């Protein structure tokens, strides 16, 4: 046991996990913003916006994440010229964030739309009846209630995002799964303990988030 701990101390596990948390944080924020815009498009009264939102969701949601991440690294940057930083590692970190954001935005959109469905139709009618146009009605009446009804499915998307952040390994962002692979290659005697350590690390990060989501979804529920 002490030997294994000595082996672990040679590697920066915390630093690697920190990269996963940063990927999750930035992609979580961006996907929430993009997902909200997509949801607004899908519930808007304008058919072309509805169509665009629906097309995005169906296209992106049904594409494997690995493909999107690789697309960012091999097409978005070198072919389409999207560069976040001249520093190679920083650039790839943000390319990974972009790919994770684009992918999870489709799930955030659908989670929020499930929240919109928890808001009775009468709320929107009452908002329209006092003269609020679509956007103010959505911002002031529909979305505040929809977010509260969508906390649980959005929390699920966040949890999926934390674990999906390991797909950034596909474009060599040195997050935890890359470190795990490196450790396993170097420390052949400890393959199973290394695997268990990394897995438990994720459980430690994800379980509190799951508990917080459950607590918030009950706490913030709209009483009717």
């Amino acid at each position: 046991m002490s030997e294994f701990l000595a082996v672990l101390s040679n590697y920066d596990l915390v630093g690697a996990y920190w990269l996963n948390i940063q990927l999750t944080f930035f992609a979580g924020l961006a996907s929430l913003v993009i997902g909200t815009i997509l949801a607004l498009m899908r519930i808007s009264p304008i058919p072309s916006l509805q169509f665009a939102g629906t097309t995005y969701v169906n296209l992106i949601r049904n594409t494997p994440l690995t493909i999107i991440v690789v697309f960012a690294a091999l097409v978005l940057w070198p072919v389409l010229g999207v560069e976040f930083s001249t520093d190679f590692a920083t650039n790839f970190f943000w390319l990974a964030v972009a790919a994770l954001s684009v992918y999870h935005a489709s799930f955030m959109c659908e989670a929020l739309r499930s929240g919109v469905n928890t808001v009775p139709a009468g709320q929107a009618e009452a908002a329209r009846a006092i003269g609020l146009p679509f956007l103010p009605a959505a911002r002031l009446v529909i979305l505040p209630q929809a977010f509260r009804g969508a906390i649980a499915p959005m929390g699920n998307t966040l949890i999926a995002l934390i674990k999906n952040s390991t797909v950034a390994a596909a474009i060599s962002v040195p997050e935890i799964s890359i470190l795990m692979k490196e450790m396993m290659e170097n420390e052949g005697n400890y393959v199973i303990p290394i695997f268990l350590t990394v897995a438990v690390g994720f459980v430690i990060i994800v379980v509190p988030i799951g508990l917080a989501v459950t607590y918030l979804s009950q706490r913030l529920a709209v009483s009717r």
Partner: protein
Amino acid sequence: MADSSVTGVTADDDRGMPAHSGEPLVVLDSVNKHFGELHVLQDINLTVHRGEVVVVIGPSGSGKSTLCRAINRLEAIDDGSITLDGQALPEEGKALARLRADVGMVFQSFNLFAHKTILENVTLGPIKVKKMKTAKAKELAMGLLERVGVANQADKLPAQLSGGQQQRVAIARALAMQPKVILFDEPTSALDPEMVNEVLDVMVALAKDGMTMVVVTHEMGFARKAADRVVFMSDGQIVESADPDTFFDHPTSNRAKDFLGKILTH
């Protein structure tokens, strides 16, 4: 029921002049609407004059709620025209929103904004639509809540109030926009019986103050007491339109006689 006809006369007298002498405010001209196969509004012609209280009654499915909802375009019509104060109802967009601000609406299921306090429910429209200063909107709202008798509940959420209180707040919310006309879509149908009167009392007071009202209801007592005109609908058509005493005491059509026979025997 013996004294209600007397009250009806009093209500007319309070108004000082016959309401139908006011200028036309809401005009429906040859309005048609289908729900799939169902022809729910059939060639509807109706004029509501300024200051007039029109009560729409009729059996379930006769199209009276749809008529009410068509006036502020919560239901789009297939053909015909609806004008408000001489202005045709716009299609979607900002112009429609502006017009809706002038038409109050009170729903069967109250539809108070569930995440906002009672006070915020009433101030939202004035602040966000009419760009009124917050302090002024609060003052206006408290005055209206006082008028409908729920000022002491201002900081609570809708779910903490009784149905009757919620509906009175909904009336205050409509009044806060200083509308030209208020539409009531079965305002007492979702209420426990003991709460019906507290809402009707507020509506009667509004009628006496000269508010233009279109009221879809099953409350015949209210129709007798506060209506200038009763419109009877059946199968998507306006079958009869008369002052309450004439309608209730001397209905002319068989459908109206049949309907009144069923509801007034108790």
